[in-house]
């Protein structure tokens, strides 16, 4: 594996970095969608995240990275029936779902080798199994083939992958943070898939020259000596990793006072977003942000910061009105939180 560009060496794109950190703190937020023009460092930033994630406990040799601490029904069938579970530390998986992937690799399928040699009907877990408890990254998510999207939608909503094919009947946990990136000019995203993302961002290249020069200088230094460059940023990476790790520990206990809850509800009501998902994501994101900042309670400031990312893709969609979605959210934020 080649060395990836360090997350903390990415110049600008603070919103994108923060959104990804929030998703890393609380996976139940539902992932991040990054849309933007070409050459903004979308994939660089997302790939950089992988090196930053803290380690987690997982059942040894479990292909689904089952959590030994989790209640039984959240485990795969093998871990459920096992008496004692051996634990090991793993890095939070970041699994790439490449374009052109076929269903058998995404969902998992019959293991041909075992079937031929042993006549044994064994399940070969797919990418969704590998991504359990981690991240599933789809670059050019808007170019993903429809049948793969269909398969993803169901699993992303339920957190369980059910495979009924080739005489197999398997179900295994598949809870992952969906991270997608793409260029809106190359095609739209299906609304159902859009809805699966907790946060959505629109990124642009920085337009001021000093920042752009800084980007190029760092990139140049990285290309020249990737290992050395990464070492230079090791401390910063470590600091951010610890910050995320600490936030993961405390996020559940961060208090969300009633005024924040009320304002979140007010915002959603005002924008007419469907269902409770928007509100829930809003509260969770504000809480994760507070945890990242080391606060013990979320404030209206936190809410204000995340509101745009949480709500901009949830408005009842007028497809012609791309730019004004942001404006509408901003107006609502101003009105509710001024």
């Amino acid at each position, binding site marked *: *594996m*080649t060395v990836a560009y360090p997350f903390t060496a990415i110049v600008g794109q603070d919103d994108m970095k923060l959104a990804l950190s929030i998703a890393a703190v609380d996976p139940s937020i539902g992932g991040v969608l990054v849309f933007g*023009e*070409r*050459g*903004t*460092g979308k*994939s660089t930033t997302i790939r950089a995240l992988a090196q930053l994630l803290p380690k987690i406990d997982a059942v040894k040799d479990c292909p689904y990275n089952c959590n030994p601490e989790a209640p039984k029904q959240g485990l795969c069938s093998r871990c459920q029936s096992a008496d004692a579970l051996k634990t090991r530390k793993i890095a939070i998986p970041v699994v*790439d779902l*490449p*374009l*052109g*992937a076929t*269903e*058998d*690799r995404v969902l998992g*399928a*019959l293991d*041909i*080798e075992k*079937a*031929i*040699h*042993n*006549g044994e*009907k064994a399940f*070969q877990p797919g*990418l969704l199994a590998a991504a359990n408890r981690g991240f599933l990254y789809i670059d*050019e998510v808007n*170019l993903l*083939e*429809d*049948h793969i999207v269909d398969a993803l939608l169901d699993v992303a909503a339920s957190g369980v992958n059910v495979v009924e094919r*080739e*005489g197999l009947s398997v179900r295994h946990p598949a809870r992952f943070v969906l991270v997608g990136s793409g260029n*809106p*000019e*190359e*095609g*739209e995203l299906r609304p159902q898939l859009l809805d699966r993302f907790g946060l959505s961002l*629109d990124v*642009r*290249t920085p*337009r*001021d*020259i*000093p920042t*752009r*020069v800084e980007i*190029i*200088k760092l*990139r*140049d230094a990285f290309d020249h000596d990737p290992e050395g460059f990464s070492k230079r940023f090791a401390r910063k990476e470590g600091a951010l990793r610890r910050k995320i790790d600490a936030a993961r520990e405390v996020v559940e206990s961060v208090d969300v006072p009633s005024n924040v809850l009320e304002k979140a509800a007010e915002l959603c009501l005002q924008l007419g977003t469907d269902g409770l998902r928007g509100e829930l994501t809003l509260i969770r994101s504000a809480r994760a942000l507070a945890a990242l900042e080391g606060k013990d309670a979320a404030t209206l400031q936190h809410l204000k910061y995340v509101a*745009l990312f949480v709500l901009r893709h949830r408005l009842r969609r*007028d*497809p*012609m009105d*791309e730019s004004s979605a*942001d404006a509408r959210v*901003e107006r609502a934020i101003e009105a509710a939180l001024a």
Partner: protein
Amino acid sequence: MPASNALSKPLLPEAEAANAWHDAELAAALVAVLRHKAGGIRVCAQPGPVRDYWLALLDSFTETPARRVPSNTPTERLLGGMDITESMRHGKPVLAQGVLAECHQRVVALSMAERLPKEFTGHWCAALDTGEVHIARDGISHTSPASITVIALDEGIDEESPPAGLIERLGLSIALDEISIRCVDDSRYARSDIVSAQSRLSHTSVPDEDLTRLAELAASMGIHSSRTLKFTVDIAKALSLLSGKPVSDEAVMHPLIRLVLLPIAQQLPTPQAEPQPPEQSDDNREDIDVPEQQTQQKEEQDHEDLVQAAMAELPEDLLAILLKRAEKSRQRQSKSGNAGEFAQDKQRGRPVGVRRGDVKRGHRIDIPATLRCAAPFQTARAMWDTSDKKKTSLYIEPSDIRVKRFEQRKSSVMIFAVDASGSSAHQRMSEAKGAIELLLADCYSHRTEVALIAFKGDTAEILLPPTRSLVRAKRTLAQLPGGGGTPMAAALQATHELARSVSATGATPSYVLLTDGAANVARDGTKSRAAGTEDALSAAKLLANTKIKGVLVDTAVRPSPRARELSTALDATYLPLPNASAHSLNTSIRTLSVG
């Protein structure tokens, strides 16, 4: 776009052509020095001796000949997948490398890049971005190194162009069509120059003030991608090594502008740099942070001076040549249409899994799925095999055969032909635009693709080839200028041709013509109301013969008899805009798309 034969481009005068060839030569040397660091090069040229000579030149620089890959190479071949024979032999999935991995550290000539289908573009882009191929197919997950250098052989005419995502990832661009073979002379670079530049490349750095200047220059041409800027810097280094001059020297700066920046420029640097880049107007989040904006404006003030300095470096005649070329390539860029895009992905249909099938019917067998079906029975079948000679390979029975299933989605394409002539523009342009926006919204909800044709002056132009991207449709529409005569015949002809190419791909076309019906430009471009109307009516009859459904939306202030006459000739539904409330318009259009 005039329907001229763009295959035979006028040649440049000899002196200019010699310079152009020198540029091409330099570009080849740069590709050889930088390889994947420059992504590759877009070569706009029809096949011919000049292009062949250029490719041979590049081969002599790199020493390993470029590998030709056709643009229609399918996903399974690009990425690789299961090696059937090996998998059978070993009884487990064995990987067959794909083209991209086979081309690791090589130069790939992608022929007919302008026809590269949308569904394959992502694979090329991923390999260019990461230098790796990551596959998850046919029961195999694997990552192979694939750092490739792409020569995109672009034979596009008029609005045809390779996908924008691919162009973005290629650092260099040259056009060879205007160079006569007589101007092609012997190379000024030798293999040894390339090798020596290559070896010194990693020790070369660009001073900060030059980096700033390059960033300035790119920004002044509307180039904002960090990826392109990185290419620019790397190419500047290579140029400086090849020429032996510092980066700030004109021997570096001028070729850099000609080969890297101008071909993709979105705007030309103007001495009075715009206070705000055009795209910022719709960036709402920018407004939150007022102080930041102020500093930005101040910085832009500083840039202005620098841009002027950079501009002053360019000799005037050079600027004129560049202006001409840039205009041309800008036009191409803005209509980054891809005829192959819709021609191919519909015909194949989308794969929707596998089913039990019969080999003889010409279905495509899905080998991995077939193997999976046969696999569980292998031990049993081996036991039952009573023939003397025990088979050593696999037992596959007809019932195991699985074939690929494709779904040919019956998609529909709505062609909007918009009258942007003076008469229409003055009266109802904004209403017409509003009406189209409403219709576009409706198309979106029905997943109908849209295409946009505008006509004015003496031509009709496809502004937007069939697309599902509403962002693009909306943007194109907003930028639609008005003015000039009404070339109705040309408009109908363009609609007709586009509709035909749409049905050739298996989709159902229909059209909406928005006009006041005041045809006043004949097919040959002469301004005459009588001839214009006559030509329009005959073109309308031709279109009516195709039985393609259409609606004519009359945009005249009062319903005009001429528009009604035209709609009769077209056999199209007639809708005068004054009555065409958004709702009734939508209902009428919907009857079209349902049919």
